[in-house]
């Protein structure tokens, strides 16, 4: 197979990027519906069921409503920062998806419609293969704070400001535990490339990091839930205390963008949990990896991610909200020390085994 020229490479990467972003935004609207229906089911309600069959058109109706609402900027707000904040939030949320692998390589079919160089070529489902992929993810997740701080401060509203301060303090505290929980898998894979971390989990469920790195996986789940501000860690927008936190003053498409950023973040952390801990696109048993000659990698990947997304909704339907001091104490006095101890343990075991 001949090497690709750079316009061909660029074409493949752009097509991949567009597909991933379109898929994410589609998944966002579907997720809003699924979340409301599932929550309603858990709480013995019906949920949205009027728009279309089973209420399936609800996301479309919501979209139309938000799109045609008046664009409104409060008089006392810092106008430019207020408008820029949602754009910053969605940009930083979408930046993370660039380095995440979404499945193994997909071999292009030999259709006559496709150009010669594309036929039968395996294409890895990852937009950018970065040498420092994990660090890049960490960098992008730290940037996520800007959107929230800007949104909360620029609105010039006390609820917004308090919500933004809480939110950013929470994101800082739990980012630490989140980053530390990745160190175990990195040590095992001896690489900062996410595709290497997935590859090192091939060969059955006993190789998954969720099994051999169980404490790290638990720390990751806690930290990720807090990082995306979901219950029981949704203090930033505790509606009983803060109206709606940092997006109190937002309406119409700006609100939709902020909401979209939140859901994209939630999907991203689920995908990352799949890649880092649940073996990515590898099946729990090697014999289940393919059926009738077809590689089921994408199906496994989607299934694991879907299960994690369901877990997030389930948590929201089940748990009460933590108090702010409890949240901080848990983050700094439980999660971070536990993560550090776990790294020390993992490193010691690796040293002992490779002595």
């Amino acid at each position, binding site marked *: 197979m001949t090497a690709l020229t750079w316009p061909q490479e660029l074409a493949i990467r752009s097509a991949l990027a567009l597909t991933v972003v379109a898929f994410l935004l589609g998944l966002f609207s579907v997720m809003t519906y699924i979340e409301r229906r599932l929550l309603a089911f858990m709480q013995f309600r019906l949920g949205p069921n009027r728009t279309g069959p089973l209420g399936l058109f609800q996301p479309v109706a919501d979209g139309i409503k938000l799109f045609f609402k008046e664009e409104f900027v409060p008089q006392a707000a810092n106008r430019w920062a207020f408008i820029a904040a949602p754009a910053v939030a969605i940009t930083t949320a979408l930046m993370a998806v660039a380095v995440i692998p979404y499945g193994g390589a997909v071999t292009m079919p030999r259709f006559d419609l496709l150009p010669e160089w594309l036929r039968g070529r395996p294409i890895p489902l990852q937009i950018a293969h*970065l*040498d*420092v992929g994990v*660090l*890049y993810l*960490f*960098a*992008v997740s*730290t*940037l996520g*704070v*800007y959107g929230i*701080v800007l949104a909360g*401060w620029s609105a010039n509203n006390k609820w917004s*400001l308090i919500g933004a*301060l809480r939110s*950013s303090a929470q994101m*800082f505290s739990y980012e630490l535990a989140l980053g530390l929980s990745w160190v175990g898998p990195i040590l095992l894979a001896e690489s*900062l490339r996410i595709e290497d971390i997935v590859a090192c989990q091939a060969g059955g469920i006993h190789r998954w990091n969720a099994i051999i790195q169980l404490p790290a996986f638990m720390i990751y789940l806690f930290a990720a839930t807090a990082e995306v501000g979901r219950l029981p860690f949704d203090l930033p927008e505790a509606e009983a205390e803060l109206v709606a936190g940092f997006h109190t003053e937002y309406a119409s498409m700006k609100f939709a963008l902020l909401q979209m950023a939140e859901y994209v973040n939630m999907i991203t952390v689920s995908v990352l949990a799949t890649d880092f801990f649940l073996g990515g696109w590898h099946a729990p048993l090697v014999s289940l990896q393919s059926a009738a000659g077809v590689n089921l990698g994408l199906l496994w990947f989607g299934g694991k991610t879907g299960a994690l997304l369901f877990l997030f909704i389930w948590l929201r339907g089940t748990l009460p909200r933590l108090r702010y001091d409890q949240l901080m104490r848990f983050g700094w006095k439980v999660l971070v020390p536990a993560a550090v101890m776990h790294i020390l343990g993992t490193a010691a075991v690796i040293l002992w085994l490779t002595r």
Partner: protein
Amino acid sequence: MAETILFYALAITAFSAAFAVVLQKSALGSAFALIVVLCSLSAIYGLLGSPILATLQIVIYAGAVMVLFLFVIMLLDVRREKGGGGPRSFVPLALLFAGLLVLQVGAVLVGSELVPQSAPFDGSAKAFARRLFSQDYVYVFEATSVLIVAALAGALALARRRR
């Protein structure tokens, strides 16, 4: 070619944003300009073959240090401050000093010759880590952790409200 164009675009962005840092009236404006400088510098590090420094620059500067600055600016509400934002009276003197600095270092720069790179350059995370944890730097690295703890304790002691 693309590398060259990208480099100059980033250099111009960084330079003009640096000017904005100094000239902005409000501290908040300066902070945002500084974030632009930091991000373009991070991209330049990437062009110069150090992906790890490029990401660390974002993590540490854009992600932590500048957020700290923004917090302090927003919480102290620096806009309230009376007349303290503008430049001081000895502008010509400062410009003279800066000009001398540029002349002196620039003369050294022009006169010096850069070592032509014969060896292939490996700026990957692995090469970086091998050098960082080699005998030469590992003690310095450990010392920085002491520095961070000291800074943490110092910041806490300074900023705490005394009762």
